């Protein structure tokens, strides 16, 4: 069975290049050498925050304690992202090699792979090196891939985020220092070791070395998984994807974590710093292009998703996210008032940092971006019914989910 989505490299295929058959295993560096390679190559986390991998490896390696664990996190949770499932299904040996390297770098006693996708679990178990890791299955969910939820679920508990600190690198599985690393990050580590830092860095920027995976969807185009060097302007990618950037009226950036961006964001280079400076995030590397959809309706869709997917455990997140989702849904059917709009803006801001995971922060970014780029349009939804929202009501699941199930 082949991957249900087309996959295309923008300049050079590394992750997307098929694994060479029976190829020599390449260099065999020691633990400290692995950390040096990760540092020299500029490998950053591909799961969201873009944290330098070498720093994380070093933290786990040097944390107090005699036992250590590593976990490959394959639960991306983002409905518009497919990249980790692609890697686990189609490049399982690369992910496993990265996990083995990370285990050696931190001196881990045991390695786990944490996945929700049944096909990915099967491929991992059957791949070379798969017998050395414990594959842990989890029910898919937006918060299930959050690092403290990962640690808890691997430990046999519910996949729910805990208060931080401690972070897993300080006290993770069974209280032991634990590296939780996204599947793509580990695959990138394997590449950095195979290619060497110098070759690895031939693509990318000084800030972020190498390439990363972008799930690009929306604007009436079938979704495609791209491998893109860091630093490439988004416009180049979009033009390659659909022949032209014309007609793109905005986008959801960083999966659902980076809020709404206007068409001017097409000129941003794809780097963590550039997206952060625009008030957004590169996140999991997914972009949903918009072509004429009402931004209020889009925000209502995403907020409704967060309201359904929040873990129902942190009071402010549960109450605040529901309130935000209600007002946005109300705007789409012209039942919201000016005082609702004021509450939407205030609650959007008040949610920042108000939970055990980053979901409330994602709501803050979403609502903030809606008011920053579309304040007048929000008000217009109080005054008159929106024709675009009328034909595209909020649905039971997000409209932006990419399904990998065979029809």
């Amino acid at each position: 069975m082949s991957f249900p989505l087309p996959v295309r490299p923008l300049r050079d295929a590394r992750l997307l290049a098929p694994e060479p058959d029976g190829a020599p295993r390449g260099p065999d560096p020691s633990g400290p050498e692995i950390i040096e390679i990760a540092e020299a190559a500029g490998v950053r986390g591909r799961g969201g925050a873009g944290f330098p991998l070498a720093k994380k490896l070093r933290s786990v390696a040097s944390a107090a304690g005699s036992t250590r664990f590593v976990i490959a996190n394959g639960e991306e949770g983002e409905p518009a992202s497919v990249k980790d499932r692609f890697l686990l299904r189609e490049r399982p040996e690369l992910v496993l090699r990265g996990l083995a390297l990370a285990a050696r770098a931190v001196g881990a006693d045991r390695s786990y792979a944490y996945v929700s996708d049944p096909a990915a679990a099967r491929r991992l178990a059957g791949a070379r090196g798969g017998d050395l890791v414990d594959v842990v299955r989890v029910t898919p969910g937006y918060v299930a891939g959050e690092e403290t939820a990962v640690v808890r679920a691997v430990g046999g508990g519910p996949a729910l985020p805990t208060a931080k600190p401690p972070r897993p690198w300080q006290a993770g599985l069974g209280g032991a220092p634990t590296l939780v690393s996204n599947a793509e990050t580990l695959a990138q580590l394997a590449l950095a070791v195979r290619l060497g830092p110098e070759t690895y860095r031939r693509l990318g920027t000084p800030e972020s070395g190498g390439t990363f995976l972008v799930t690009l969807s929306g604007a009436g185009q079938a979704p495609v998984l791209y491998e893109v060097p860091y630093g490439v302007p988004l416009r180049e990618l979009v033009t390659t994807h659909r022949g032209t950037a014309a007609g793109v009226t905005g986008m959801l950036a960083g999966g659902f974590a980076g809020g709404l961006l206007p068409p001017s964001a097409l000129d941003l280079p794809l780097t963590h710093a550039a997206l952060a400076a625009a008030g957004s995030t590169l996140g999991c590397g997914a972009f949903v292009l918009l072509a004429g959809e009402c931004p209020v309706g889009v925000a209502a869709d995403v907020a409704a998703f967060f309201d359904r997917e929040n873990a129902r455990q942190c009071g402010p997140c549960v109450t605040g996210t529901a309130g935000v989702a209600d007002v946005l849904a109300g705007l789409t059917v012209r039942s919201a008032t000016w005082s609702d709009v004021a509450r939407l803006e205030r609650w959007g801001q008040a949610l920042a940092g108000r939970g055990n995971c980053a979901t409330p922060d994602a709501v803050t970014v979403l609502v903030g971006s809606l008011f920053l780029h579309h304040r007048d349009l929000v008000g217009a939804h109080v005054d008159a019914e929106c024709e675009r929202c009328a034909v595209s009501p909020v649905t039971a699941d997000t409209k932006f989910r990419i399904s990998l199930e065979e029809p």
Partner: protein
Amino acid sequence: MKVVIDAAVCDGKGYCKRFAPEVFGLDEWGYGKVLVDEVPPEHMAGAEAAVEACPLQAIRTV
């Protein structure tokens, strides 16, 4: 010393703020919120009293 409120446990009774208003506040919805990155020495005693007073033991010191 840092203090952390477990948002999954806190139910907004507000004892923390009563014991150490310089360290704890209440958010938009009445849930406990840590106001400082590090607890200043002069408010250490209040913060520790709040940790004791929280009926749900939602506050941890780090």
